């Protein structure tokens, strides 16, 4: 029971009988990324937020490198959360890599899901023959390096503070970069899984209404990728946001909220 809730630090708010909206954060930070968007749905929906295992305040002891060595491990958790909460007709809102986690969860238990919202999705970041993902292999290697550089800083500066002073919580409170904090080895593997997965084939067979939100000038999931996703899912809706960057739920929460609401309103 509750182990899933604790493992993924699941929080539920909104209207108990409302249609469930499950917000799933992407690579980098945690569920607080939805802070400006999720509450807007609390009046007429059941709002579910959670952290992927290894991120935010999830149970780090539940991190199993084999299980989370592919997106399927994360997708299993999504299914478990929905089952644990007894949800159905779920609107799954996945940001970035979580859009694909949602797709995998949908294939695993299609009966749970009523709609998919993909915010800045990419089924494959690495360019391939006849496919533009936006990154070369060398880019991804560089990215993994960049992450390492920062996580080294994290581990060198922060780890002793956290580990050595569990009885002085004020030190933990002083941590900078806190809610994007992740143990370095977990972050590295999550980055690999995120940027080295190829989920193009999984886009086939999605039979629920799907919304693709594409930002302007998104350096991570550029427009051709969003268009590709839209093309591969027949009947899907593609909405181009004026918001720039990759995190419209922070940079343009009103626009993001409005697009989701418009999609959900019949």
């Amino acid at each position, binding site marked *: 029971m509750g182990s899933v809730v604790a493992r993924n630090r699941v929080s539920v708010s909104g209207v108990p009988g409302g249609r469930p909206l499950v917000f799933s954060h*992407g*690579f*980098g*930070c945690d569920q*607080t*990324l939805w*802070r400006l968007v999720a509450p807007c749905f609390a009046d007429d929906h059941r709002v579910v937020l959670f952290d992927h295992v290894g991120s935010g305040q999830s149970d780090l002891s539940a991190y199993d490198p084999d299980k989370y*060595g*592919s997106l*399927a491990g994360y997708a299993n958790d999504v299914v478990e959360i929905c089952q644990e909460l007894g949800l159905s007709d779920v609107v799954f809102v996945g940001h*970035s890599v979580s859009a694909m986690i949602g797709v995998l969860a949908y294939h695993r238990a299609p009966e749970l899901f009523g709609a998919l919202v993909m915010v800045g999705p990419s089924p*494959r970041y*690495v360019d391939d023959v006849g496919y533009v993902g936006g*990154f070369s*292999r060398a*880019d*991804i*290697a*560089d*990215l*993994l*390096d*960049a*992450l*390492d*550089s*920062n996580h*080294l*800083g994290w581990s*060198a*500066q922060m780890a002793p503070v956290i580990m050595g002073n569990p009885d002085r919580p004020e030190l933990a409170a002083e941590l*900078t*970069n*806190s*809610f*994007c904090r992740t143990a370095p080895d977990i972050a590295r593997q999550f980055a*690999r*899984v995120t940027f*080295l*997965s*190829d989920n193009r*084939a999984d886009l086939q067979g999605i039979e629920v209404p799907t919304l693709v939100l594409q930002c302007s000038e*998104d*350096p*991570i999931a550029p427009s051709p990728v969003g268009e590709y996703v839209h093309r591969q899912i027949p009947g899907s809706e593609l909405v181009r946001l004026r918001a*720039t*960057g*990759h*995190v419209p739920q*922070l*940079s343009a929460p009103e626009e993001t909220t409005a697009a989701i609401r418009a999609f959900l309103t019949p």
Partner: protein
Amino acid sequence: MTGRSDAPPPGPDDGSDAPRSDPEASSRLARLLEGDPADLYENAPMGYLSTLPDGRIVKVNRTFCAWTGRAPGDLLGTRLQELLTVGGRVFHETHIVPLLRMQGAVREIAIDITRIDGSLLACLLNAVELRDDDGTPLLIRATLFEATARRRYERELLAAQRLAEESEARSRVVQKVVFDLAAATTPEDVATVIVQRGRAAMKARGAALVLVEGEADDPRGVPQLRPVRSDGLSAGLLRRLREAAGSRLALELVQGLRSIVLDARLRADQPDLAAAMVADGVTDLVVVPVSADSKRLGVLVLARGAPGRGDLISLDEPGSSRPPSPAEVDLLWTLGRQAGQALERVRLHEQTRLQGERAAFLLEAARLMADADDVSETVQRLAGLVASRLATVCAIELVTEQGLTRAVARHRDGARQPLLDRLRAKDALLRSPLHPAVRALREGRTQWMRDREEVRAVVDAVAVDDEFRDLAEQLELTATVSVPMVVDGRRLGVMTFAGDRQRPLTAADVEVAEQLALQLSQVLDKAQRFELEERTSHTLQASLLPPSPPDVPGLDTAVRYVAATHGVDVGGDFYDLVRLPGEQVSLVVGDVVGHDITAAATMGQLRTVIRAMSADGPPPAVLVDRLQRSWGLYELQRMATALFATLDPATGGLRIASAGHLPPVLCGSGRAEYLPVRPTRMLGAPPVPAEEWAGELPVGATLLLFTDGLVESTGADIDTGLDRLLEVAAKACAGDPGELCDRLLEELTGDHRADDIALLALTRR
């Protein structure tokens, strides 16, 4: 530098005096400190940037421009992200943007700025977000510190940490392998561990463990290779690998760790293998020797290539193959050695287990042979036992009047039994002198065909037609061993074991076959002697008894003779019924002492004598006396008991005399009793006058004469048997003497009769 070591170095301007003492210097310092804040901004020893929330640079200091080699005009309007590396850009989007938005500041973010010449400036970035009263972001202020040395140091630290982690990961792999191998009890277990762990450690697409069959160092030639376990390899690639390995690669494969790269040379040398690799998306095969001490046991083959569906994309460019790193080579060698040692251990263990199994098998076979009743059943069951427990095929040929004849041929796999049966039908009579069974029998020596080629050659030599050859081929036998069964120079038959890939024949199996053949030959010998004797004695006895009693008006008669169930023993029980002149009948039931041919022969003679003496219709007591007195004349070798009676069917007049025999039963109307006939001595004992009982057989009543086999059932004494006889007779006596006899036999005797039984019953109508 020379001069006064205690003096301060010369100042930038003119003096060496302390600034405090120089008012001009003080005012200069004050000027500097109060100087133009714009100058501090522009020339501070750090980069200053202000950007809009979307990253567009709206203000930048000179230091940053100088560091990056870019003019302020170039930078203004440019997004900060555009100055970052690809990795930095992603980090910016996934970490810096959210952090600034959520907590308003970031600190000590490691970031590389691209200079105008393309080189990188390693920096640490701090930033704050300025917001209006509603919390709407207005501006981001960032400071950048150059951190080249620090970042280099961190990178070195990271690299060292990586190496340590990799080394630790390899140690963990070895530890896991050692742990898993400790639990392995079969070569298949070892193969599973090594294939799965090796594959995972090398992130290979597939892996297989291929073991050398037999002895790798066999000087006879190229060893056979057998894939024991494979994982993630297509059947096609596995087959090509085997074919390639089976030829000249076989020895090369086991000589050292090597990588077989899918290149032009391989395409030319091994086009089939290369094609299979292409089809599977395999770019190279890493071949790891598996050895124990200096013994080469086989190879672990790891197929590397582009990741399959569901795997992560490789950072290696597609189609490129990277030779295993020295650390990986080291790991693989270790895995190979660990696997080799584990294989040796399980092989030893397996041998011990097999020895135990063979001993248990021989014991079971001995028990089976001791319990079995007849030869054909023994042979059938033994072949079944061998096929289920020891060899793939067991065939037994026996020498019969027609020559060497197949008695049985059993295959372990029921699905293949029909193949064997068809083959067997084709050479039911083994005629070819080259047939291993025939040779074994002729030469009196075990014939062992050790491999498939030898088996094939023999099949070709003895094949009666193409179908025979075809059937033999389909059985896929890899070895046969034929052991002759000879006792005292008499050739009894041949026992043949055959093995296939799943169950090859070893020298130990040959030994078991020889022991089993020896055991069976003794059983066959004993059975053949026994059968001969049994057949003879039973034939003799059957010929000595009257075929069926004559019809007598006014009487219903029945006779039964039942042989003992066990052994060749034949009894001397007899009965006779003779019509005498004057409507009388003479009855006799007797039992010659002993259970052998002599007893049977004596019985035959005695019956003849009794018939001769009965010719003039003497009363029974007279007949007994005559026999007693003249016994010596007949030179009969055994004594006998007998019951004699005469009956007048018209009147029921009945006279009975007994020479040491059990009394007869009179039954009818639901009652049964023994007639009180007083026995005299048995025939052949010193004569004593016989007494005669006289009475009447009422109409509808039945008289039963019997021998002791009927009442001497196993385990009970004779009195109990006699009581039981009366009980059954009382119930079963209903005017049908045949039915009475059958009921008595059914209820008084079991499946096993230790003695013969003769019955004579008659009912007066």
